[in-house]
């Protein structure tokens, strides 16, 4: 795949097997989330996973994108993600009992190889959530993912969720983006 002389990052072209494998990984991940297969979803993560979602403010262009990496809605490790997933398996995780009905849409997938068996994957997401009497909660934004191949499987090593909303239009984030 990569030769020592190769300058990184290398774009992984749409239509290649390498690209298709990554897109299929994202689709399968989305299906797991929508089906509530959270234990299996956790298996997709490396032990050093960083899962984060910074706060965002509306700022003038000279101030940059308005993301604040030092504070956010998620700052997770494998241990804390395990806690979140195990919590959903208890009998009293009321925010998800009854369960939310979510739909994760993933598109605009672009892949760069940034190391041997390491990929940076950016994608646009739209997530809808419906629960109880609430009509749609709506989340849109960009995911910046790092996927790493461990033995034969691709695993998620980092996910940065860059939400478009500055005010979260949902009473809680008991789902994963």
């Amino acid at each position: 795949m990569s030769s020592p002389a190769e300058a990184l990052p290398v774009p992984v072209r749409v239509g290649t097997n390498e690209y298709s494998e990554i897109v299929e990984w994202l689709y399968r991940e989305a299906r797991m989330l929508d089906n509530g297969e959270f234990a299996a979803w956790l298996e997709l993560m490396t032990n050093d996973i960083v899962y984060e979602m910074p706060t965002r403010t509306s700022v003038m262009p000279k101030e940059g994108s308005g993301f604040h990496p030092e504070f956010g809605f998620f700052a997770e490790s494998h241990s804390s993600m395990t806690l979140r997933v195990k919590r959903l398996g208890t009998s009293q995780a009321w925010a998800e009992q009854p369960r939310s009905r979510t739909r994760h849409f993933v598109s605009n997938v672009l892949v760069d190889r940034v190391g041997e068996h390491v990929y940076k994957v950016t994608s646009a997401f739209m997530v809808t959530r419906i629960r109880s009497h609430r009509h749609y909660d709506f989340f849109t934004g960009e995911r910046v993912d790092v996927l790493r191949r461990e033995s034969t499987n691709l695993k998620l090593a980092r996910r940065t969720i860059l939400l478009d909303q500055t005010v979260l239009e949902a009473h809680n984030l008991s789902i994963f983006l």
Partner: protein
Amino acid sequence: MNTNSPGIDPNLLRDRVNLKDLVNAERHEVSRRVYADPELYEWEQDRLFRRTWLFLAHESELPKPGDYVSRDLAGEPVVLIRGDDLKIRGFLNSCRHRGMRLCRADHGHVSIVRCQYHGWTYSKTGALLSVFAKDLYEADRLRKEELRLIPITQLDSYRGMIFGTWNADAPSLADYLGNMRFYLDLYLGRTDGGTEVIGTPQVWDVAANWKFATDNFTGDNFHLYSTHGSIIELGLLPPDPMSLSYGHLVHPQDGHVLHVVPGPPDPLFEYFGLPKELVPQLERNLSPVQFELIRRYGFSVGTVFPNLSFLQVMVQGDFEAPPTPFLNFRQWQPTGPTSTRVWSWLLVDKEASPEYRKATYEAYVRTFGPSGVFEQDDLENWEECTRVNKGKIAQQYTLHHQMNVHVPVDPEFPGPGKAWKGSYGESTQIAFYAEWQRWLMQPKPWVRT
């Protein structure tokens, strides 16, 4: 301030129900109507929010001259700007010409404030500096001194927390907070440099009445073992369902309320669990009585009347980390009879180490805020309570606030105000609702007799 016509009892709602019957402090009953009534929402805005002191920002959010933050004061957009003299001033965020919103980002930096509509400019102190085509105005038609930015009527801060009010008659902030200052020092005034905000606040919208949030933050410890049963199941809270009952409920004065609760008998849970290297600072910044209190306790939650709450607690955000403290301030900003915008600031002592800052952030974000494994479930509850209590049938029945309200005030408690031994109880909630009712009924509730 009354919305009714002259001659009509200002405390009668349209259907002739009297405000005095909505909260019965003697019988510890609260009407469900207070959480879901458009007419009461308007009265709250008129009689409470446009007349009382409200939290706006922390001074560390605008550290340098020219820094500004856009906020909301009783439903009106305001901007706080730090001047070249380092003083923070607050204004209605509105040009005097057409009322255009001036500072349109959530925060930023300006040398002058320029209205994008017709180009009027203002100084950081609110003076009108220039208008477009000034020569086209007849002499005396452009009185710059009369066209300053509209200031927030009173603006003041306590221990870095900036408050404002539109009420010229309101007492000073220090008087308004009164005895609550003694307790706020335990969170905000304990270290040499005070506190600062990490990043920017989380902001989110909830379909709940703001008073369900304050009700929970007046000292409700006894929801823990049902609402947060998932955490008990995971083994991250003591199995003893009375574990948070061994402290005190406190009513410093005038609807400001809190609880203080000791942790398990382990030095880890003293001083709210703060890093032990900060203890000498606590000792020199706090009075002996305050220092003794902070030594005793691991947990404290409360509310500065009406809608600024705080949370100084220790939690485990994952299976490996020890119980780790965080200090969080909340504003429950009503946006309608049954909707609230929540603002949540994480504060840290400026002297804390980088490692502690990381640990306190992770502890907070994993457990509280909209994604927190505790608070997810609180938010679900407050929306469901609000939804049900809209019902006209439901509203025929009052709500029950009678736990441990028979216990007398504890004369041994060393802090100011009234305190009750036993931190499961509803005395602080009733104190909050009684104050809410007073503000809605009294012509000048800030005047104490």
